[in-house]
């Protein structure tokens, strides 16, 4: 519809100059001759004739300037004909082609354009309502799905766990291996569901954190012990570099654990050989934590997009898939704590995720 906008724009510009020209016309063709006529009526015939001539000139001038103005507008209308024609009645088009009834054609054109704009606005309003409804449906769906998934997941997980604990008879090594495999994948499914629910809460600004004083070193140690078997099996090492004194932050322990699991999980996913290293230290009144790996890394152009929704790089490791929500959630959690997170990466060398959190205030 850009052509129509252009048409309106030109028309309104023309309006300004029309007003100006009418003022001059009014002056020349009405006021001056009137004054002169008044003078003549009482005095002299020659001046009377001069006044008549001036009046005639004024009228002619008026006629031609209006004509030229209209001609310009009509020229624009004709240039825009292709865009306008679908909105015009066949008669109008015919009249336009015959060069007749120019004003009528113009007014038809304008009202057709306005009508079209109104229709478009209404359509957009309806679409907007539909989108809002869809968004609500999506939220309800995510809520229900996460509830409906959790129950069967609980039952499957607990059954396998009880079997694996030997509650229903002795378990041999092979059976145990597959029990553990199942349990690991149940955890994976569980974190996918949690991520979906979290992201829907984040979008609504409803993700809540419950802060307590917590030593970041403890969380790091727990996460490392969670990953140690998997990391070893893949032939990687996982180490930490932690200060001897507590690194206390005022934070939601579960949520912070979620962030670290996510970052270490990513490092594990994208590292084929070498190491994963987690370090923490105090830096300028903040506690800084770095999760570093010797993995595939990424191109500098990809780093800024890391924290946006559903972004996962087309890396060679195609079998490793996720929801692509982990980093979005992590960033939100860190920011809810008043902290900051960013990434540094070199292709084929490795990636570093660095986040910092405010230190726990004294006396907490």
């Amino acid at each position, binding site marked *: 519809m850009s052509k129509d906008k252009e048409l309106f724009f030109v028309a309104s510009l023309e309006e300004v100059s029309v007003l100006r020209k009418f003022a001059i016309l009014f002056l020349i063709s009405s006021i001056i001759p009137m004054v002169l006529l008044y003078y003549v009526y009482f005095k002299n015939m020659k001046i009377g004739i001069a006044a008549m001539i001036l009046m005639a000139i004024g009228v002619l001038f008026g006629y031609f300037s209006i004509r030229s103005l209209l001609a310009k507008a009509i020229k624009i209308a004709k240039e825009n004909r292709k865009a306008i024609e679908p909105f015009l009645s066949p008669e109008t088009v015919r009249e336009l082609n015959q060069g007749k009834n120019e004003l009528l054609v113009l007014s038809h054109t304008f009202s057709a354009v306005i009508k079209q704009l109104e229709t478009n606005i209404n359509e957009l309003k309806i679409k907007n309502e539909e989108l809002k409804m869809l968004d609500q449906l999506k939220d309800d769906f995510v*809520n229900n799905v996460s509830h409906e998934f*959790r129950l069967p997941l609980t*039952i499957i997980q*607990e059954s396998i766990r009880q079997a694996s604990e030997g*509650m229903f008879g002795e378990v041999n090594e092979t059976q145990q291996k597959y029990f553990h495999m199942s349990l690991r994948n149940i955890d994976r499914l569980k974190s996918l569901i949690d991520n979906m629910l979290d992201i829907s809460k984040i979008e609504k600004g409803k993700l809540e954190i419950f802060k307590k004083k917590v030593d970041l070193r403890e969380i790091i140690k727990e996460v490392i012990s969670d990953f140690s078997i998997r990391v070893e099996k893949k032939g990687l090492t996982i180490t930490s570099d932690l200060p001897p004194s507590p690194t206390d932050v005022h934070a939601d322990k*579960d949520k912070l654990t979620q962030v670290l699991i996510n970052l270490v999980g990513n490092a594990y996913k994208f590292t084929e050989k070498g190491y994963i290293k987690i370090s923490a230290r105090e830096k300028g009144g903040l506690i800084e934590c770095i999760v570093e790996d010797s993995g595939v890394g990424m191109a500098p152009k990809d780093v800024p997009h890391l924290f946006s929704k559903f972004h996962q790089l087309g890396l060679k490791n195609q079998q490793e898939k996720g929801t692509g929500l982990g980093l979005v959630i992590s960033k939100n959690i860190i920011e809810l704590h008043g902290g900051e997170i960013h990434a540094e990466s070199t292709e084929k060398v490795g990636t570093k995720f660095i986040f910092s959190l405010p230190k726990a205030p004294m006396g907490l």
Partner: protein
Amino acid sequence: MKKILIVDDDVDIIDLVENRLKRNNYEVIFANDGDNGVKKALQHKPDLIIMDVMMPQMHGGEAVQLLKSYEETRDIPILFFTAMNSYLPQSTELDQVNVAGQFYPAITKPFDPNKLLSSIKTLLGE
């Protein structure tokens, strides 16, 4: 032997929790909805009630309010057992459920069996 009442509309959940509790030397009774849960509590006077939240007929919150209104069941400790927190009123901690301004401990499904057992022990004062 301490007696524990499980109120849950899912029979599989009851089966699995029962396994765990029996292994840890608890006597187990159960009910499939809030209404029957209250009846069984009045009848058997358990030492602890494990209560689901989302149930047909009467949900867990209502059942607990009812239990608190009877003298016989008023002092029985409650442990909520729920798959979802967002349906529940706001609480200051994720592992608590708010019923009419009163906070009760909660275990979320899927659950950590160690956490379940340690919560039970704490509530029973063991």
